[in-house]
């Protein structure tokens, strides 16, 4: 248990550092701003209680907010994403989520399910974040375009990071 808490805290610190130091400066053609810290929320274990999920998501978002001068915006998007997570997991994992050995990663979920899981949650997060940031209906389609490009890029990084860092299980 302690091991799990520790590894999640470590993951949060590394992801926030990566986001603030590198990915906040990434800008392809003025449209793509990936927010990779959402990996933290995606990778939290399935058996985490609901309230803890919301609170950790809130603080993860708040940490990014403090460093990128967008007070509250990332926090709002992250909390909403965390709120949607249990429902999406229930729909995708077909009853296996109560297994203590079943974790949210490519090995346990399978590539197809994991991509779907990441894509849906990243879309929720990015759509909310980009629309809160713009806060203007007049720029609806431009914001939509920006959000979609960033969603695809973030999802790509999420899936690649799975292969780069997850320990492959011996079967």
């Amino acid at each position: 248990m302690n091991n799990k808490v520790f590894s999640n805290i470590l993951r949060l610190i590394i992801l926030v550092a990566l986001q603030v130091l590198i990915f906040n400066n990434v800008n392809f053609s003025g449209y793509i701003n990936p927010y990779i810290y959402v990996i933290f929320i995606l990778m939290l274990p399935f058996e985490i209680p609901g309230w803890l999920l919301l609170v950790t998501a809130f603080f993860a978002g708040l940490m990014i907010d403090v460093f990128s001068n967008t007070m509250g915006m990332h926090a709002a998007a992250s909390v909403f994403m965390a709120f949607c997570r249990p429902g999406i997991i229930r729909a995708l994992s077909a009853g296996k989520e109560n297994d203590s050995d079943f974790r949210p990663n490519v090995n346990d979920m399978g590539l197809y399910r994991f991509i779907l899981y990441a894509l849906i949650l990243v879309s929720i997060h990015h759509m909310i974040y980009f629309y809160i940031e713009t806060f203007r209906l007049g720029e609806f389609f431009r914001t939509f375009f920006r959000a979609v490009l960033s969603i695809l890029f973030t999802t790509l990084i999420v899936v690649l990071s799975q292969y780069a860092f997850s320990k492959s299980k011996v079967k």
Partner: protein
Amino acid sequence: MRNLIIFIGKHHFVLLFITLEIISCSLIINNSYYQQLVFLNATNEMTGKVNNTISNITGYFHLKETNKQLAEENARLRSSVVSSFIKTSDSVFIINDTLYRQQYRYVEAKVIKNSYNKRNNYLMLNKGSDQGVKKEMAVITSNGIVGIVNEVSKNFSSVMSVLHKDTKISAMIRKNKYKGTIVWNESDYKTGNLIDIEPHVKFVKGDTVVTSGNSHIFPEGIFIGTIKSYSIKPGDNFYCIKINFSTDFNRVEYVYIVKNFYKEEQLKLLNTQKNEQ
């Protein structure tokens, strides 16, 4: 009472979600309008130090470019000082200094964090209230305008860039002095918009746009950019003008903070005017 506790216990997930969203929304709103939260200033100091360290490291990569810019500016300023002009008349003249009173003073500062790819962009500078920076001071580079100081901590200040949906800067077309407003509705950090120019005004592509000096923030005649294209929609009373910014927001590194010595006086007059209406 018991039923209430049972209700909270049953729906704690949704209730907690709503509470956290309300907290985030109040943070967003407070930050956009008041920005005077004490804890925000404290965190600003902390993040300021982190950003300062990062910019100290990355600053080395641009040393050559920055040096070139500074040298160019030095050359331009040197050629405009009195000693570089030859006296054309032999008659004695006196420069009476009391005729001129200094209205603006420039303080140089280094950009330690810069963003230009979001809808609302901010910069962070390494000068703060200890160095005399206050809210609503103008920030410019040798090439053109950058933004307005919107938040100050002890040693750092945050600048609302021109690339922000709420920034409005009074501007004019230099050759005929017609006034308009600079806003940023583009997705591209190189172009901006000049609005409120009436259809009878004559101008061509490439005309220079400068600050008008109508506000108490920017001095008159600071470069903003050149006109890139213009159009007028049927039934509209104003031109829709796109301009190329002369500032390269991608690589602003050293900026000047402009202090207006007569700002209080101007503001006071403005306020009495408002009260009379």
